[in-house]
């Protein structure tokens, strides 16, 4: 369980208030989706939960406050955001990145058998085993996206925070990711952010709608689809409700 109590985040030098009055309860072993327009605070919320920013208020994970239990959380919680272009500089290979990503749980100076096994297990599950010895700089953006996901999974976390994991993936990739996250969520608590309402409706059970740093709505998928005006208000455009394979999906209506 992730509980957030009156969270407020201010970015220091400019004094921009990125999040305010956030109070939420996010369900365990489910995929929670944070949706909202650009600059609504999605990434900030994920980073705050991951203990990567200073904030006011409180965030509890399994009853432990994030800031005071940061060492413990590094072992059980993974955040995967943008890898950035800084990685390729020194000729790092995929396997270097994945082994390094086990830093909080790896013991000692050298890689253990367990470290190597875990890296192979995750990359096999993600279908990137053939990329392990390739340089990061040689990967396509879709392949890189999978490496980023793998780097979050190699330390075998219980909580997975993914910032826009579906960007750079094609439709087949999104469909695969949706199914994969759903499978993972049987034993993992997953929180993602995305712009793609179709992807979100396919993948996530619980929704948080953010707008200008505040929570407009939070609830289960079925309730959200009945209250789609919250999503419409957040984005400022209309959505229609379509049923696909017996599952209601929100589809944005482009202005014409």
């Amino acid at each position, binding site marked *: 369980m992730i509980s957030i109590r009156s969270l407020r985040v201010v970015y220091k030098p400019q004094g921009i208030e990125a999040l305010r009055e956030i109070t939420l309860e996010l369900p365990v072993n489910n995929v929670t989706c944070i949706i909202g327009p650009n600059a609504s605070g999605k990434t900030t919320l994920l980073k705050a939960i*991951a203990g*990567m920013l200073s904030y006011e208020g409180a965030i509890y994970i399994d009853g432990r406050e994030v800031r005071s239990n*940061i*060492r413990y959380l*590094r072992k059980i919680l*993974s*955040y995967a*955001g943008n*890898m*950035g272009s*800084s*990685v390729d*500089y*020194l*000729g*790092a*290979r995929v396997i*270097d*990145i994945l*082994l*390094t*990503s086990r*830093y*909080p749980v*790896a013991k000692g*100076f*050298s890689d253990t058998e367990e470290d190597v096994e875990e890296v192979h297990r995750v990359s096999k599950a993600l279908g990137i085993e053939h990329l392990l*010895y390739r340089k990061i*700089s040689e990967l396509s953006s879709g392949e890189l996206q999978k490496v980023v996901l793998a*780097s979050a999974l190699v330390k075998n976390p219980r909580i997975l925070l993914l910032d826009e994991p579906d960007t750079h993936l094609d439709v087949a990739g999104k469909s695969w990711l949706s199914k994969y996250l759903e499978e993972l969520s049987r034993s993992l608590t997953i929180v993602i952010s995305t712009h793609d309402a179709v992807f979100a409706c396919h993948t996530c059970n619980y929704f948080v709608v953010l707008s200008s740093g505040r929570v407009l709505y939070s609830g289960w998928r079925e309730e959200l689809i009945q209250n789609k005006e919250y999503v419409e208000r957040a984005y400022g455009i209309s959505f229609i409700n379509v049923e696909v394979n017996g599952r209601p999906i929100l589809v944005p209506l482009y202005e014409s």
Partner: protein
Amino acid sequence: MFLIYSLTYLTSKNYPSSSQEYRVLRALYSSIAGAVLAITGCILQSSFRNPLVDHHILGIGSGALFFTYVTVLIYGYNPSMVTLIAALGGLTSLALTVLIAEKISGSDIAYVLAGISVTSLFSGLATFTMYYVQVKYPYASVLMTGSFILSREEQLPYTLIPLALVSIGYPLLSKRLNTLMLGDENATQLGVNPRLTRLLSAVIAGLSSSIIVSLFGLIGFIGLISPHIARFLVKTSDNRLVIPVSASIGMTLLYATDLFSRTVMAPMWGEVPAGSIVSLFGAPFFIALLISRFMGRRT
């Protein structure tokens, strides 16, 4: 192995002649200097996430040299004083480079540009003071180009300080530097403080390379090219492997260069300083690296 051999050789004190002692010392010093500079190059490149830097390019070298001269000018050649103040001088010039680079944009090219300006400032100052220093200490000009011609036994403890520093730094920093390559944000997420790691790396690399410069002068490019050759050879960026491999490359390169300068060059033109020979093949390498960086960026 070589280190152990030469150290036992020196301590056993039963070498036949002083010229033999000189040769062993010189081989030892050039090897240690090569290894230390290569490791500092690795540490600086990974911590600044910038393949274009080493102690020379970031201005540590010329800063340390200038402060060496100033110390000699004030106190005469007092080895411990020179070592201390040169180390502080190297750190000061590094700090100056970092400040300027971060002011410009913080990009890898900004670091090179800031480093070049700080280097020109301090080498200008160093050249200027050298003429005054030469009166007190006739070998001052030797430090300008980096040479092991002045290898003396009393330098031994001061040579071992940087070696000890980088030897402590290697187990302490390798894994942390690996996480820094994922970007500051991801390093934080893995539980590594990027700023603290960078500071510690800068202090260890700055101190050890400055001390080497205060003893043997400016030796550029060894620290730049050795890590690149190492990464190319072992096909990974993992510092746990890259640091020791590039240390042995730096060691071999500088020892070979010094050997070349005193055996092949000396009878023909007189002894050419090792530092200038290193620049001879290091500079084209740096140019190639710069070009490949910009070509890579366009695609």
